[in-house]
């Protein structure tokens, strides 16, 4: 098993994620993303409103992390954030975990149960006509 000793940065995202706050947030996390093989977790539990520029910022962070062989993972998605990510087809580009701890632990090894909630949601049969 790969023992990972590099630090995992957990950042809590602001309540409103619009063009201005997304820019500020990106400025804050850029130093972490510029590190070698960055491991970053965004906690979206507080997010009550997110628009296209917020999602765009998440994708920018992800591509910057990928450039340096790192990854960005999402945790504790609020319903609002989850709906917007689904709507913009971006939720499948990220690993999403129930808690920040699980997301952070997932950098050191695969956690078979951590994403159970998400999988359950995806598999849940439609209550309405399919």
């Amino acid at each position: 098993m790969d023992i990972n000793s590099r630090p995992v940065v957990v950042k809590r995202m602001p309540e409103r994620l619009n063009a201005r706050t997304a820019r500020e947030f990106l400025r804050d996390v850029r130093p972490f993303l510029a590190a070698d093989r960055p491991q970053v977790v965004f906690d979206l539990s507080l997010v009550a409103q997110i628009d296209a520029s917020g999602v765009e910022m998440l994708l920018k962070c992800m591509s910057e992390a990928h450039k340096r062989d790192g990854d960005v993972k999402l945790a504790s998605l609020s319903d609002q954030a989850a709906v917007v990510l689904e709507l913009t087809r971006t939720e499948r580009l990220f690993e999403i975990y129930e808690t920040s701890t699980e997301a952070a632990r997932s950098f050191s090894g695969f956690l078979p149960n951590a994403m159970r909630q998400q999988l359950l949601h995806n598999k849940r049969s439609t209550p309405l006509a399919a």
Partner: protein
Amino acid sequence: MDIRGILLANSEQNVAENQALGAPLATLDVAGKSTLQRMAERLQQYGISSVSAVVEAAPSSGVRNFGLPSDVTCVSAAPDRFWRTAESVFNDMAQSGAELVVLIRLGAYAEVDFEKQVQFHIDRKERVTRMASDEQMLEIFCISASRRNDAASLFRTQLAHCRSECPVLQHDGYVNPLATTRDLRQFAIDILTRQAQTCAAGKEIKPGVWSAPGALIEKGARVLAPAFVGSLARIRSGAVITRCSSVERHAEVDCGTVVENSTVLPFSYVGAGLDLAHSIAGMGSIVNLHRDVTVTIADRKLIGSTSVAAGKRFLTSAAEAVTYLPKLAFQGIFAVNRAQKPDLQTTLRKTTPALGTAAGFETSACDTETSHKFPNMVVARRYGHQ
């Protein structure tokens, strides 16, 4: 016999739901017509030609007839005056010679046999009779117009109590409680899958696909049965409407967006390259039925609205038409290379153009290697196949 009808539509029963969508559920279009319209038409089908509707509306919203037939009198009432207005409409009917009044609060949509109900009322010789479906009491009453005190007590208790005995007639036809947004969505499904007698307000252009007059389905868009496209609605190229989805009048679904098992409310805009599933979208918000959550979307590139005023819509379209050629010329001169027209497969796999510089990320719809080997499988598996 002079029989008349009163329809009541207010939002006391489902305040939270109405706040989400900004109007009483009974006034929202479902497959081309509101429940209010459908009920008024049903009353008229049974020969109850004199129908009045009392609809709760904010004083600022002005006079509207909510798409009701021209011979239906529509009275708007402020929330605090709603029940008084309803009572005075009843009294006016009684004074003008009505013998029997069928009173319906929407509420539930029930496909009632009014002939049977009136006959039941006459046979029982009671002042007020009511309908019920299984264990659920329906707010559908038959009131002898001369019994104003009984009617008054009903109105003053918001239809909760009747001062005299109120025999109940069991209804065994279609009922939708229409108490939540989930019921509203289910109603659309029931109409499109013909579970209800009432049908979509449009022409069946192919089996299971209804289109109302003026609906525009652009070349390259796919509408899979069962589905409904309302009058003057626009489905842009590359969009997919599928699985009992209903796009109501004047709504617009932009390029490459997939609308699956969802309702797009009238005068709404759904941005390009989105995945709208198991939701009701419009009025600047999305009600996601899977997660049971209402999300306000401030970003108009994702969910927006078009103007209800025809003049404003005309001006917007005129401005678009006037700027179309200069825009093309500008793009022709300054664009580095002209983007190739994407096919449906590619469009469905990419993130929305609303994401600006992050637009166009590949998000494989069927995230397996198989999707590359059998590119046509993606659409066939996820969105049905024609």
